[in-house]
């Protein structure tokens, strides 16, 4: 097999080389080795759905008219006859009902956007829980983080383009949030909308952002992202022969190229199938934007829900007595908007962006990490990740609280009150429980290594004792269970030196030490060779 792969790669390299003389470079790239694991597919799904977005998006630009000028509808749709609407909305209707395949393309584009954002978020979770962001990949984590933010911008700007009631209200919410920014808010609002909301310029501006600026940035950053993956080489899960200094896997060409190429069509096919079967964003049911009507049970796309949920969760009055909007010296400060829509998302995303450094301070480890962690072996990180997810999910649930309340016959207000408490309690509980489970799993691993697997075979000794036969692990199995870093909390130099002079940088060190204790005070160490040795003696 190895020889055949080699000749496939060098054959292609030769063909190109005879025409361009960059053969050795091509061969170098083609021989690049990629480890294999299902979770490495998540990033690929994001990439392929982005390609689907580009292809379907270009089709949409051929028919979409980014203008807020008014027209009176006279197309085939009965319910919209004679209704005044923006050209943006009219062209969306035209595309949906008169252009052959137009509705399918719109649906493909929208479903691809939902998948794109979902794939980015799960990919990010994979990188987080396996520690793939550690040195030297912190920079690429930041690139990925920026891509995630850009995908939200892409989604929101696209969602707003058809200029329907729903997306118009979404824009109005953005306008309201913008206004709450101290001192500059009202001017930022004018700057965005070119004057008073909604004005006539926002759709053209969003259009340019949506089809040029944001996708351009995404494309550039994807290139950088993949280049860095190449440069750093891909991480690998622990296994025999896999170290921080090598990569075990299959060559990029032809094995990976074939797999990936095929997988693109799988992703495209699934999106097309879903788009052909499930309606998404039927704007003709909502109607063109009008500042007056609105209906209950209408949610933004899933990736924006958490902001909407945060806005819903925040009370305007704390305990019905403390106002969350302050009037100070004649100026108005709206905490009820700033906290959920600006401060909380800012802290949440800020924490995510800087997480690699937070953990690096805690470990004090300067080495490069190319072998991934099994999540159980870093209980605090895994617990933090679960806490963040719970926090996020509570906001998403609150964003759909009216639907949940109707579905389960709950009181809307009670549900909100419950989640208002839950947002503080549940993430902490989630952290503690997850950490516990991780410790349990680690102890289980120790058991396995020391005493082997239960076989279910019961043997009776001559003297009448029954024992279950344990089968020792293979080298391969044991490797996976024992090869992880056993990190002790940081030790730092004392505050005063021997001459009683206070040391510079002591506070920073102490902060790092506290962080380190939080991470590593409690831990389950992997089985050492000595332990293994004495355990095996005890068995015989």
């Amino acid at each position: 097999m190895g020889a055949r792969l080699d000749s496939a790669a060098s054959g292609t390299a030769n063909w190109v080389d005879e025409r361009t003389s960059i053969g050795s470079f091509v061969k170098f790239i083609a021989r690049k080795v990629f480890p294999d694991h299902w979770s490495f597919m998540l990033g690929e799904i994001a990439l392929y759905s982005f390609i689907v977005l580009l292809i379907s998006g270009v089709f949409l630009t051929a028919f979409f008219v980014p203008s807020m000028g008014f027209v009176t509808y006279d197309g085939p749709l009965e319910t919209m006859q004679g209704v005044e609407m923006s050209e943006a909305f009219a062209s969306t209707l035209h595309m949906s009902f008169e252009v052959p395949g137009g509705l399918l393309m719109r649906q493909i584009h929208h479903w691809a956007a939902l998948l794109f954002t979902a794939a980015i978020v799960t990919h990010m979770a994979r990188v987080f829980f396996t520690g793939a962001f550690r040195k030297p990949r912190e920079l690429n984590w930041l690139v990925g983080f920026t891509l995630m933010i850009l995908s939200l911008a892409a989604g929101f700007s696209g969602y707003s383009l058809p200029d329907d009631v729903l997306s118009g209200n979404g824009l109005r919410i953005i306008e309201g949030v913008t206004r709450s920014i101290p001192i500059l808010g009202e001017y930022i609002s004018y700057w965005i909308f070119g004057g008073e909301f909604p004005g006539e310029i926002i759709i053209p501006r969003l259009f340019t952002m949506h089809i040029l600026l944001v996708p351009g940035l995404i494309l550039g950053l994807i290139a950088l992202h993949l280049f860095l993956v190449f440069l750093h080489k891909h991480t690998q899960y622990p296994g025999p022969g896999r170290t921080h200094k090598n990569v075990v896997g299959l060559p990029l060409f032809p094995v990976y190229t074939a797999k990936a190429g095929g997988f693109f069509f799988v992703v495209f096919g699934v999106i097309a199938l879903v788009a052909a079967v499930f309606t998404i964003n039927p704007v003709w049911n909502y109607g063109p934007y009008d500042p007056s009507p609105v209906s209950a049970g209408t949610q933004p796309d899933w990736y924006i829900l958490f902001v909407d949920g945060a806005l819903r969760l925040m009370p305007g009055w704390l305990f019905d007595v403390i106002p969350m909007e302050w009037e100070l010296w004649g100026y108005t400060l709206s905490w009820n908007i700033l906290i959920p829509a600006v401060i909380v998302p800012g802290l949440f995303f800020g924490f995510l962006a800087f997480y690699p450094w937070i953990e690096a301070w805690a470990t004090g480890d300067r080495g490069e990490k190319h072998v991934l962690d099994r999540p159980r072996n870093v209980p605090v990180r895994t617990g933090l990740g679960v806490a963040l997810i719970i926090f996020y999910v509570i906001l998403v649930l609150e964003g759909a609280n009216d639907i949940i309340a109707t579905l389960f016959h709950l009181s809307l207000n009670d549900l909100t009150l419950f989640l208002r408490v839950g947002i503080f309690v549940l993430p902490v509980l989630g952290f503690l429980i997850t950490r516990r489970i991780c410790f349990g799993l680690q102890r289980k691993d120790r058991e396995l290594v020391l005493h082997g697997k239960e076989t279910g075979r019961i043997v009776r000794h001559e003297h009448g004792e029954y024992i279950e036969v344990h089968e020792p692990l293979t080298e391969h199995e044991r490797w996976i269970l024992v090869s992880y870093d056993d990190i002790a909390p940081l030790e730092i130099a004392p505050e005063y030196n021997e001459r009683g002079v206070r040391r510079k940088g002591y506070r920073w060190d102490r902060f790092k030490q506290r962080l380190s204790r939080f991470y590593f005070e409690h831990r389950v160490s992997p089985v050492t060779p000595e332990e293994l040795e004495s355990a095996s003696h005890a068995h015989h």
Partner: protein
Amino acid sequence: MLFPQIGNMGGDWNTKKFAHTMWRKGTRLARDPDGTLIKASDVTIGSAFHVIPDGLNELEHHRIEEKAKAVVLLVRLDPRDLKIQPGREDWSFDGIVAYSKICTHVGCPVALYEQQTHHLLCPCHQSTFDVADGAKVVFGPAKRPLPQLPIAVDDEGYIVAQSDFHEPIGPSYWTRLKHTSDGLNDSSEGSSH
């Protein structure tokens, strides 16, 4: 502006427009969206009307911007249920009250009226306002009551506004209170276009 490229992006930067709507002394209340006028006798106890100012539909320019500020919800309560707010004794007519329909949270239309409880619910983030008690907040993220539009009935029996709102409608902003004291009660001041 220092940087004309950025400076020109914000239109005329006159954010005082936030504080003015189309309503004037004597502007009649009309049904949204068809613009037919509303007589006090049309408004039975318990009913609710979605209202625009008469003449809005005929505007040549800035119709949507004006509508985004001027929409009003008109309801009639049993006068015994209505707690008249101090200083607003003559703002209602026989149990008929009019409140801005733009949420004081972040600006969605507050469109769902529940007749039994007199509660007005904003579907966006569920701020709930008590129409019987000055549209004060009873639940949700909004902090301020909905601004009230003072109304009266003219000689022909149509419901009319007594003036513009006395405070900026919709979401809060830094200089909101400054705008409030900015000659708003002067109904001769035009909307600034």
